[in-house]
């Protein structure tokens, strides 16, 4: 692997790509170049997508099955890209990979449009923890990231995917992802974005088979001049499939649309959604759009949504305990953004919370 300069290291740290962290595999790309790729375990295979296509003839037919090429202009752009950048991860059947796989995309050049395509396959009964960072180098004036990610999670397999974004004021981001979650399989998707971005729009989709589980957690802090349109759609495709969508959004002048949609089509499906927003400024907005669609009387679907400012009583209480106003606000915001994900391993939970604490951009308060 090429030695990284200090600025790059700092940028990567913001998205949890820390070289000192123990891991089972690594993928790191800047602009069009893969600058690090290695695996420390035989339990999984990680390859550049181009090499994987050469190795596995069937892969070509698998690509774009969950995210269709014609979905929108951004996927079309990825599909027609001259350069094929991306990774392929396959966890072998029955293998439980406890240490996370770290992947990271970075935009390093001005006016660069980075197109990526990732394929993740968790074979039957396997387990994978993926931490994906996406960042733009701090000097960058503008850029675009267009990414397609397709997850194939087979029967009884578990995948947790934690995506951490740290872009810049002039970067536009349009990730497109979809997951096929097999029978009794589990997919936990976490999304963390705590800084500026010119525009970020995504709506990952998961199809959950019988007895499967899909959980989507997102934590967003939107400063002034940032635009987020985020959300998740979960389709309960089998008997006893369940889903949870939780989003915590703080707008400090940023414009945020937070969507959530659960579609139930089979008996005994369960779905719950909670979209909570905190507004810190008179500019910007949070638009929470929770949607439920039930097509079977034996479903249990529910949602709650709230958008408001920091509670005056909570702030007064903390200040009456001797905490100065700005610190009290910060404590409340940190607490609001503190993710509690029951199905996440403890070390990952701690790591995500540390990232939130360390990368928060609350100085603009």
């Amino acid at each position, binding site marked *: 692997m090429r030695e990284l300069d200090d600025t790059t290291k700092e940028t990567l740290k913001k998205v949890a790509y820390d070289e000192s962290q123990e891991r089972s595999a690594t993928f790191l790309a800047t602009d069009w170049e893969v600058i690090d790729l290695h695996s420390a375990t035989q339990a999984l295979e990680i390859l550049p997508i181009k090499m994987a296509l050469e190795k596995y003839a069937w892969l070509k037919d698998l690509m774009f099955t969950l995210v269709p090429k014609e979905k929108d202009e951004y996927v079309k752009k990825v599909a027609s890209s001259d350069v094929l950048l991306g990774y392929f991860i396959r966890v072998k059947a029955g293998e439980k990979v406890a240490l996370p796989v770290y992947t990271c995309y970075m935009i390093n050049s001005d006016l660069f449009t980075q197109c990526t395509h990732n394929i993740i396959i968790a074979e039957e009964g396997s387990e994978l923890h993926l931490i994906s960072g996406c960042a733009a180098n701090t000097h960058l004036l503008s850029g675009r990231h267009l990414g397609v990610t397709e997850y194939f999670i087979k029967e009884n397999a578990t995948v947790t995917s934690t995506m951490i974004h740290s872009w810049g004021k002039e970067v536009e981001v349009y990730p497109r992802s979809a997951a096929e979650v097999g029978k009794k399989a589990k997919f936990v998707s976490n999304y963390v974005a705590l800084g500026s971005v010119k525009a970020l729009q995504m709506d990952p989709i998961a199809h959950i088979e019988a007895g499967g589980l899909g959980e989507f957690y997102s934590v967003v802090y939107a400063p002034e001049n940032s635009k987020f349109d985020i959300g998740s759609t979960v389709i309960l495709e089998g008997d006893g499939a369940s889903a949870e969508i939780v989003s915590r959004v703080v707008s400090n002048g940023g414009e945020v649309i937070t969507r959530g949609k659960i579609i139930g089509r089979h008996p005994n499906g369960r779905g719950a959604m909670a979209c909570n927003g905190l507004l810190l400024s008179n500019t910007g907005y949070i638009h929470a759009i929770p949607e439920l669609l039930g097509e079977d009387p034996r479903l249990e679907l529910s949602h709650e949504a709230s958008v408001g400012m920091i509670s005056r009583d909570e702030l*007064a209480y*903390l200040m009456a305990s*001797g905490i100065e106003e700005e610190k009290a606000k910060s404590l*409340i915001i*940190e*607490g609001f953004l503190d993710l509690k994900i029951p199905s996440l391993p403890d070390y990952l939970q701690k790591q995500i919370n540390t990232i939130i604490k360390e990368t928060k951009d609350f100085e603009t308060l």
Partner: protein
Amino acid sequence: MDRPLLEINDLHVSVAGKEIIKGMDLQVKQGEVHVIFGPNGSGKSTLLNAVMHLPGYTIDRGVIRVKSQNIAEMSTDEIANLGIGISFQHPPKIKGVTLRNFLDAINRSEDLDEAVKALSMDTFLERELNVGFSGGELKRAEVLKLYAQHPDLLLIDEPESGVDFENIAIISKAINKILQKERPMRLRERAAIIITHTGHILNYVQADIGHVFMDGKIVCTGNPQSIMEDIKKAGFSGCSACIKQQKDHA
């Protein structure tokens, strides 16, 4: 010992334009424990909230001094940092903020761990502040907060409300410890104002001076036990009758 921690002169306080405190004076010195009795809705809590400059409480007239400093232009945290700790009757639930994080942010005590154990709060440290706490747990958390703050003057609002006997005993023991009750009175550095409408707390925490607060004013000051006995016998209506009798007599 004679140093006044709190001086209130001719205080008038309104809430949402309605006058609640209608002219009161009070002085609390080091080592003193004052108890304020009064019926529900008489404005007792308003007094404590006004001292802390909580939002919504407007001082229309009068002066509050903490350690000789006029607090008129101070913010709530500045007042707290002068050495005042308040235990609320109904503290808010703060989602996401754990008791541990909260205590870390305010702690000035060297033996907080001991207090955590004494108040049986060790299993609550990772819980969200006041979320899902029972009545007794809320009060224990409030007293633990006072312990961490290490204040010179404690403002304690209805410590016994919604609390069972076992919890009152635990809370009182901790309050007595904070108030250095094991020392002779002249060596105690801390003071307290305890608000109560039942007086039950006096069975556990010994007070030095009692006041009856009615209709926005202190109407009677004296021995706290005697005042409580009178209230037990004739209720607060007995206080009204007593005041009328005194006026007629005068």
